């Protein structure tokens, strides 16, 4: 055995090139390792952002259950996870006048708190920052920049159904959720 002495290695010209090659390949491989480790996870985490929410019609009762007073209805989200429990519920305010239904999401258009229908003054009021809406959903007072989100209702075979929507976010263009 005749190992090269360390001094030889240090002084050799090729070594510099070899070293830089080794450095480059190590950095590149580290990048590959990193990508292999993280990419599936990133896709996994971001999936809910990309996935288009389903919209389904949910049964909320019979036409007789409704009258000219707004009534809170509760319905299940389109695709509730099996362990979601009560968190999969959403709510809407629904009323019917002359067989015409009006439905509003309970989400305040300011920052999303749940608005309540207050009978006497006929207003929707938000408990958070003082948002108030008229019975047609338009803003009466307070910070909300947009009217309450209208939801779609249909009657099929004597059953009133509501069309689920994503949480109405204030920057979401109304058209995108109304269609």
């Amino acid at each position, binding site marked *: 055995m005749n190992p090269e002495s360390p001094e030889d290695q240090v002084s050799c010209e090729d070594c510099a090139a070899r070293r830089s090659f080794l450095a480059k390949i190590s950095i590149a491989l580290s990048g590959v390792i990193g990508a292999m480790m993280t990419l599936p996870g990133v896709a996994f985490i*971001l999936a*809910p952002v990309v996935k288009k*929410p389903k919209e389904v019609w949910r049964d909320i009762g019979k036409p007789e259950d409704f009258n000219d007073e707004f009534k809170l209805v509760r319905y299940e*989200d389109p695709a509730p996870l099996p362990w979601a429990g*009560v968190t*999969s519920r959403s709510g809407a305010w629904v009323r019917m006048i002359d067989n015409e239904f009006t439905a509003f999401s309970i989400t305040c258009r300011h920052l*999303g708190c*749940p608005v309540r229908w207050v009978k006497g003054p006929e*207003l929707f009021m938000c408990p958070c920052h*003082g948002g108030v809406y008229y019975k047609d959903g338009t803003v009466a007072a307070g910070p909300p920049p947009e009217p309450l989100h209208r939801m779609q209702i249909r009657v099929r075979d004597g059953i009133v159904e509501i069309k689920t929507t994503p949480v109405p976010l204030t920057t979401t263009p109304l058209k995108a959720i109304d269609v």
Partner: protein
Amino acid sequence: MNPIKKTWNWIDERSGYSDYVLPLLKHIVPRDARWWYVFGSATLTAFLVQVLTGICLAMVYVPGGDEAYESLKYITDQAFMGNLLRGMHFYGASAMVMLTVMHMCQVYLHATYKYPRELNWMSGVVLMMVVFGMAFSGQLLRWDDNGVWSVMVAAEMAARAPVVGPWISDFIFGGAVVGGATLTRFFVFHVFIMPAIIFAGIGLHMVFLLRHGVSEMPNPEQPVDPETYKEEYEARLEKTGVPFWPDAMWRDVVFSTFVVAGIVLCAAFLGPPALSTPPDPSNIHSNPMPDWYFWWYFTVLSVLPSSMETWIILGAPVFGFLAVLLVPFISNKGQRAPSKRPWAVGLIVFGATSFVVLTIYGYYKPWSPDFGVDPLPESVIGVSSGPVFEGGQLVHKKGCLYCHHIDGYGGHRGPVLSDIGQKLTREDITIRIMNGGYNMPSFAGSISSEDLSHIVDFLLSRHPTNEKTNE
């Protein structure tokens, strides 16, 4: 040599305790720091409380849509010591938030962020933001209706961001709505990601601390000059410094003792915050409120004119963070003494005052209609029948009292009406009710003319108390 000593020597030689750890503990620090410098170490102690109690809670807590609430109830009501641990984690969080801010204020007042400690400051600011993130996600893991609506508000705020807003909020929800996928996200942030950042950040903060040494108390005679600072500092330290352990550290230990005792006592006697109703996003009786350290922000969101709102919601956290982060770059030399830096003192006083005022407002929520108001009793209405009496009943029924105050009854959102009869005419009042204005809804569509005239009759009968008694 006795066997214990021998064993220790073996360990010491292999581990390097005497060579590496001891010098850190005994590094020389200025002797004049005294009690001013206890906040940083106390923050660390509070963090340890959080880690330890958090680990215990996580052994039982189930981060699942429905079960989180049940497991919290179990921890609170049944688990041995569960109530105390939840309490310690809650008050520990409050302590950590408070101490972090106090530590920062002290460092700012003494301008310790100046040369060469810029990175100490900046790493601290990042840590503080993460602590706020922990506080927010933590109150949310208390997964009751308040937790659900906190997520909702967070997502709605994020949604205001241009273009990417809705994506961020879908990311927060783990879908298009609050649901089974939501809580686990925050659990992971609260339990894995942010604590990891805090551990790493504290490590970095400590490295910087040891590299540049503990600062001296500011002295108007010793302005910071980056050219000469290090030499002068070391020279002074050599003359008057003391070893950190135990000469300086005993004060940290004493103060931390009080902090932990305070946390335990609060937990034992005040208990953890009560759980409200289950996390049902269709529950409209929820009255969402953040924990106390965010009430000031709650107020800000309520009183902002809506035209500025989106700017503030998005801009304030970003610019606030950057402004604080970059403080050392505004000035990193010169005077450190508060007596020579009136603006700094003013800023702290202003900040503290605004915090207190906004917090108090946040607690009373005067901008919010008060849903629970009592009807006016006859003694306030003044008569027991007739239009004025009818009107007195109607102001409750029609919700006027949710916002307006009359002789000790009603909410605080709108103007007090106790002596409105003296200020406005019948016409003015009628117009105001019909058309609304400022922040008052118009009632034209929801009130009959008869009811209206009763209400106006009643309001016209409102006069200052002394006149009423004169009548």
